[in-house]
């Protein structure tokens, strides 16, 4: 009986020793003809689209990033090798510390707002006896809205005059008016707020799916032992979910570390670089100058960010290994 691990092409190649009436024949020689006959060409043809697309648009660019980071490219004259100059230039850029700080702040705030709340919501939702679908649909709706639409809509909400939407609503309870995007203190949190609104729904759905995998019997056993609701959540739900929890946390950090759209569309990195993120800085290096970009610096910073995320992920996996070990 064929199992998942049996290679199907064994059914077509002639390379297996053929057994005829108990005697083993010599393995047929692999020639181009036998390869084609054996389905090798077919397999290659099937893999061709993927090899082409990945080769051209994934593997080749990854290699190019490394190469371009040690070159000076401006697309007009041929590229020249400049060693570590690009990295040095990036490290000396006075905007870099600000960008790193802002990106860290964004990721941190996003974690605070957007990490525990979906979990609480998911636990509540999974226990709903009615309206299950409504909960899920409502939670996920902001996620399907194109990010550009969401940002432009929220930009209208964030109008800092007293007749702006949010200021009007807050005015009903005698709060505000707030400057939202017009102040260096409130600009970044405003961005995080919109970003959480637009993305938390996905996390909720992931948690919901994971919650269905928690064994009911654990809860029943705990109830029999007289455990309260809170204890059940703390000692059963969360540990059972730890794989997903750890995963979503690192994914969220990696995602928010590369935030671009919100700072670009809301504030262009302003006011006074209060919302300048690393991705925005990379964009500025590459595409910000009307006379041509500095692609070397842009790729150097991209590599630095990627390296940081790699190291961070490894450290994270190591640190959480004990907790996620089953």
């Amino acid at each position: 009986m064929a199992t998942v691990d049996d290679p199907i092409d064994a059914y077509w190649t002639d390379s297996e020793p053929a057994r005829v009436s108990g005697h083993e024949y010599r393995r047929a020689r692999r020639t181009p003809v036998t390869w084609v006959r054996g389905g090798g060409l077919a397999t290659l043809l099937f893999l061709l689209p993927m090899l082409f697309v990945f080769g051209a648009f994934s593997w080749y660019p990854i290699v190019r990033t490394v190469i371009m980071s040690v070159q000076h490219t401006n697309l007009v004259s041929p590229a020249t090798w400049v060693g570590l100059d690009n990295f040095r230039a990036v490290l000396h850029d006075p905007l870099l510390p600000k960008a790193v700080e802002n990106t860290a702040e964004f990721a941190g705030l996003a974690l605070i707002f957007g990490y525990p709340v979906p979990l609480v919501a998911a636990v509540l939702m999974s226990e709903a006896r009615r309206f299950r679908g409504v909960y899920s649909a409502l939670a996920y709706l902001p996620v399907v809205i194109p990010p550009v639409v969401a940002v432009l809509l929220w930009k209208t909400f964030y109008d800092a005059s007293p007749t702006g939407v949010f200021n009007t609503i807050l005015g009903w309870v005698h709060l505000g008016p707030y400057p939202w995007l017009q102040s260096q203190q409130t600009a970044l949190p405003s961005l995080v707020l919109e970003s959480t609104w637009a993305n938390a729904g996905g996390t909720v759905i992931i948690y919901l799916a994971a919650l269905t995998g928690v064994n009911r019997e654990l809860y029943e056993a705990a109830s029999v032992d007289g455990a309260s609701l809170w204890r059940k959540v703390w000692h059963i739900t969360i540990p059972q979910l730890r794989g997903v929890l750890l995963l979503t946390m690192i994914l969220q950090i990696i995602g928010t570390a590369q935030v671009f759209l919100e700072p670009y569309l809301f504030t262009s990195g302003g006011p006074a670089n209060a919302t300048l993120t690393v991705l925005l800085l990379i964009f500025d290096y590459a595409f910000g100058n009307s006379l041509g970009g500095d692609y070397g610096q842009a790729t150097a910073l991209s590599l630095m960010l990627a390296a940081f995320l790699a190291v961070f992920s490894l450290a994270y996996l190591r640190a959480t290994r004990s907790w996620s070990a089953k």
Partner: protein
Amino acid sequence: MIAFPGRRSRSVEASGPALVGPDEWRRPLVKWGFGGAQLLLLVGLIVIGLGPLVWLAKSAITPTNDTITYPMALFPHGAAWSNLREAWTNVQVGRYFWNTVELAIGSWFVQVFVATTAGFALSVLRPKYARVITALLLTTLFVPAVVLLVPLYVEIVHPPLIHHSFIDSYWAVWLPAGASAFNVVLVTRFFDNLPREIFEAARIDGAGPFRLFWSVVLPMSRPILGVVSVFAVLASWKDFLWPLLVLTNPDEQPLSVRLPQIQAQTSLGVFLAALFIASLVPIIGFLIFQRSFLRGTGLGGAIKG
């Protein structure tokens, strides 16, 4: 571990409450506390999740002056349905809408084509070098998108062998969209779970690999293709940075790229109408294909783990 999608798996909606037992619900603290929290959540979801979109719908047909002076009022001077018409024609949202559709269809096709052919090869045909390819695939999963941005752009502007830039060509958006390792892994795993007996039977009937792919595997793949398609179309509709960079001709740009650029030339009411039109397709698509969305997101969390 993912449930085999073909069977009636424990979907989000199908599984019942487990944490709070039936007698617990009877306890007043739980009933009012937990239940109250649920109600609060529902109200919160409606206000926060739905609120902004309802405001958008309302303001899309409200005259600009009313939106500016009384943003929270409900049609103080009547509705302005002309906003929608003006957005579609004068501001040419209609054209950008069709651009977006065209981009979505192309990206969708490339993604499905690449994922199914690769998944079939890796899962069903199983060449000797499959391990290598899968390893390469997985590495791209762990490379953050930022790394690809600049070199991909330079490659589109000055492709290595062809002396013709692909800037302003839709191929520059369609082809890179296919390089989604996530899709390939998803489809490969799905194919892994298909019963091998069917393949064996087909092979005995004399089916070659192409026949097997087209007539046996593809028809059985509808669930996973549904998930991949839904996410492909949605991702294309939401795409911003890449089309911004490679499509410099305003006539060919999709909604997400054009909308920010026309804001300064469009009155607020018409602009909000344009935003509303831009979100219609994703919203309607979501309401119709909810199952695929929610299953796919749940799968996504499982896959990456």
